[in-house]
């Protein structure tokens, strides 16, 4: 029984050690600015197409689904309001984070994992650089900057998607839709909608890098860590989302 529990407990410990180091390194020199910019490009610009598409269609789908329910109350006019609130508070941050986790947690795990199994991580240390500082911290900083921005883009495109449905199918006027959407949002919604991606960024970057660094067993091991990183990051995004929401929505 103890032998069964040992690996996961050790893994969790390793995860927190790595996270601690990566976060401490944020304030420490040397800063690898080139690596941060490169990562912002791969994570941010690279994820833009899927974030744009998922954002747009999730907004449109939500508008469609909500219309059905709103019709029974004769409150189709509130479509903008509902789309805005669900998107900004929940769907935007979570869907964007899931997309980026699928793309980048797995990407980081496979990249760092291959470096691990080909002794590049050892070489990095042997040549005088700290792999946490050179690989993990830039990815963490880049994700923490880029994910909130991606979420804003997804939120906006979701609203546009909802608007398309409202305008073309429900025959609402633009003013009707955008006014109700705009007025529905409070500062706390925006805050909640931005603190979430910021927190998810830590999950995405640290889980991805952790599984990369833990990789053993050649190319096969790289495949294993890649899958694990993506699955674990996605699950933790949902768990963390629950707790952050619980904090904001006092019942």
């Amino acid at each position, binding site marked *: 029984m103890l032998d069964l529990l040992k690996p996961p407990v050790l893994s969790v410990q390793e995860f927190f050690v790595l996270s601690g180091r990566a976060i401490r390194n944020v304030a420490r020199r*040397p800063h690898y600015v080139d690596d941060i910019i490169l990562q912002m490009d791969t994570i941010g610009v690279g994820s833009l197409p899927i974030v744009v598409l998922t954002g747009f269609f999730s907004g449109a789908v939500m508008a469609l689904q909500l219309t059905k329910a709103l019709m029974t109350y004769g409150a189709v006019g509130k479509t903008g309001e509902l789309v805005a609130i669900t998107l900004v508070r929940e769907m935007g941050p979570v869907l964007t984070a899931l997309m980026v986790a699928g793309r980048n947690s797995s990407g980081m795990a496979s990249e760092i994992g*291959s*470096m691990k199994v*080909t*002794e*590049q991580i*050892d*070489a*990095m*240390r*042997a*040549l*005088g*650089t*700290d792999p946490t500082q*050179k690989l993990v911290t830039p990815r963490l900083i880049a994700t923490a900057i880029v994910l909130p921005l991606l979420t804003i883009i997804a939120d906006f495109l979701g609203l546009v998607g909802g608007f398309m449905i409202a305008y073309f199918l429900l025959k609402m006027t633009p003013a009707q839709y955008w006014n109700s959407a705009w007025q529905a949002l409070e500062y706390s919604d925006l805050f909640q909608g931005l603190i979430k991606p910021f927190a998810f960024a830590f999950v995405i970057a640290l889980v991805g890098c952790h599984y990369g660094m833990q990789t053993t067993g050649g190319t096969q091991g790289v495949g294993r860590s890649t899958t694990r990183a993506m699955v674990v990051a996605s699950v933790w995004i949902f768990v963390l989302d629950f707790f952050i929401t619980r904090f904001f929505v006092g019942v």
Partner: protein
Amino acid sequence: MAGPASSTALRFDHVTVRFDEVTALDDVSLEIFEGESCVILGAAASGKTVLLKTALGLIRPDAGRVYVFGREITRLPEDELQRIRARIGMVFQEGGLFDSLTVEENVAYPLRYQPGARYAPEEVRRRVEEALRFVELEHTLEKFPSELSGGMRRRVGIARAVVTEPDLLLYDSPTAGLDPITAYTIMALILKERDTRRATTVVVTQRYQDGVWLSDFRYNPSNGRLELAAGDGEVGGAATRFVVFREGRLAFQGSRAELEGCADPYVAKFARR
């Protein structure tokens, strides 16, 4: 050979390294003097690579002490270790090159990132070109490691290790999996580096032939070839020491003549040409 001015470059004092249930190094004591060459022989998974990584402080021993240039590194924090690692060049088994960087950036890496290294870009460029000329790969600056053959990757690995002119060079199986001609090229480079700069050289290998090159031959700068050195096993005043590992333990330590005369069947297997 403990000459008058020689001090230890590397000293292992009853070092034990364990990974979970496996004991990779078992109570290993070993001294390598400055200017000396050391050939470490042993079957696969006998702890040779672990020994090199422990010497660099990449692996921390579970028991015992490791000294590099007389300084104990066993419990040094990582940033102190970095300063000592700057004096050591390591060539990894497959070269250990960074895939995402070009050959030029790979070789420039220690010059750019090693703590305390402050070189002007022109100086970096000059030294990188010099190191690549040393391994005769000056035409590959812009290439990526994936575009190179196995032997070339190792040569770039050597260039990256020697570019900082370290006092101690560690080679992890530099000739493993190479054809005899490429293996000769690599060994010639190792001897060239040793005999032009008198760096302490530790070579881990499975082939006895590599040890013979190190102990009996020297690099002739006038024609760029290896030639038989005069004297028995002494090159430029420093002896070549042979070490044989078996399952994490030292099975043998001594000169080439002693190795060839050793009665232990495991050790004798390595001494056969």
